[in-house]
């Protein structure tokens, strides 16, 4: 239990996926204009990464390892994730329309989110069991959500500020990210 907690805090706060691993920069810059869309994106990422780390864990431990095909992990994982995202989208559309309405728009954007593949590969690299992998995936996605929601909150305020012309748009977001990243260094002493 303690070990799982350490993994969770480690990947959610200390090694935040966006601010120190630089995975999922695209949605972090692109979908962080408003807090509610940012929260929606975060929710979709939590959902997909948790399922993806479970499925890729199963495939790795029960198919690739027994058949000694570990070297195929990158190819298998990316195809599984791409298929999974679309499957989840179709499944939600048919069975849970309210959830689909909340998350649906963001789901297609997630296939190219390198955080999903990144988590699947980290789980293998660190020799996590399936449970540890799922916890790691969930925590990583929570870390992503924390970062993107805070960023969206700050961006809503920045709107009213007087910013030099060349810094409008992406540059000011990146500067904000730099400051947030420094702030997240504060967590590094926890574990």
């Amino acid at each position, binding site marked *: 239990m303690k070990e799982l907690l350490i993994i969770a805090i480690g990947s959610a706060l200390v090694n935040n996926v966006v601010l120190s691993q*630089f995975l999922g920069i695209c*949605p972090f810059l*692109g979908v962080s204009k408003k807090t509610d869309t940012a929260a929606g994106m975060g929710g979709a990422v939590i959902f997909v990464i948790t399922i993806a780390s479970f499925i890729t864990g199963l495939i790795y431990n029960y198919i690739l390892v027994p058949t000694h095909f570990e*070297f195929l992990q*990158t190819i298998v994982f990316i195809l599984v994730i791409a298929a999974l995202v679309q499957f989840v989208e179709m499944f939600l559309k048919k069975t849970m329309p309210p959830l689909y309405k909340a998350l649906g728009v963001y789901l297609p*954007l997630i296939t190219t989110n390198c955080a999903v593949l990144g988590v699947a590969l980290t789980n293998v*690299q660190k020799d996590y069991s399936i449970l540890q992998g799922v916890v790691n995936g969930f925590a990583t996605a929570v870390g992503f959500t924390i970062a993107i929601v805070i960023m969206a909150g700050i961006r809503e305020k920045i709107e009213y500020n007087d910013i030099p012309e060349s*810094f409008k*748009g992406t540059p000011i977001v990146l500067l904000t990210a*730099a400051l947030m990243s420094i702030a997240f260094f504060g967590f590094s002493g926890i574990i």
Partner: protein
Amino acid sequence: MNNCAERLYNGLIKENPTFVMMLGMCPTLAVTTSAINGIGMGLSTTVVLVLSNMLISMLRKIIPDSVRMPAFIVVVASFVTIVQFLLEGFVPSLYASLGIYIPLIVVNCIILGRAESYASKNPVLPSIFDGIGMGLGFTFGLTCIGIVRELIGSGKVFNLQVMPRSYEPVTIFILAPGAFLVLAFLVAGRNKIMANLEKKGKQAAKPQGCAQGGCASCSGCDGKVFPTGEKE
């Protein structure tokens, strides 16, 4: 042959993936802690890009349109796996410092983007040169950022001490915040130059990908990898 030279120019300068198109931001931020890492990542990406462009261009008449994205992904992922093992075998130090970002070349927007927008529509030779141009452009971008960060962050360039001994390195530049900071100034500088160009009435290539409204705008990454038969 003229066409090939034009492709090289296009990749290196006119549509430089790092400075002009702003593609592949994840590796740009993550591995540019030193100039060597920048070059290593850039060249690995170049190799994958050239090989995948070549194969996709060869297979462009065979791959059915409806399954082209999964096919591209399989091609790219296979080459990435090969490059990963070559790096692990021959340059283990680089392999260790690039780590997880090597397999993540698969999801680099540049590669799928070039496959979709160029290699799948053009003959083999120009596609190869397109890959070389884009790849070298990316390598050039990463190396420049790497040099700046390494110089300010540790006073060295390519592991050689260049700053005087009395220089106190600003370590934060080789840590995570430094990456965001350098890129912020880079994009701001780019905006400034583009604004000037536009004043003079010149047209410049528009940025694509992450810097402009998320990955959806990145060609070839519209999310629908497998055809579902549904029209959105």
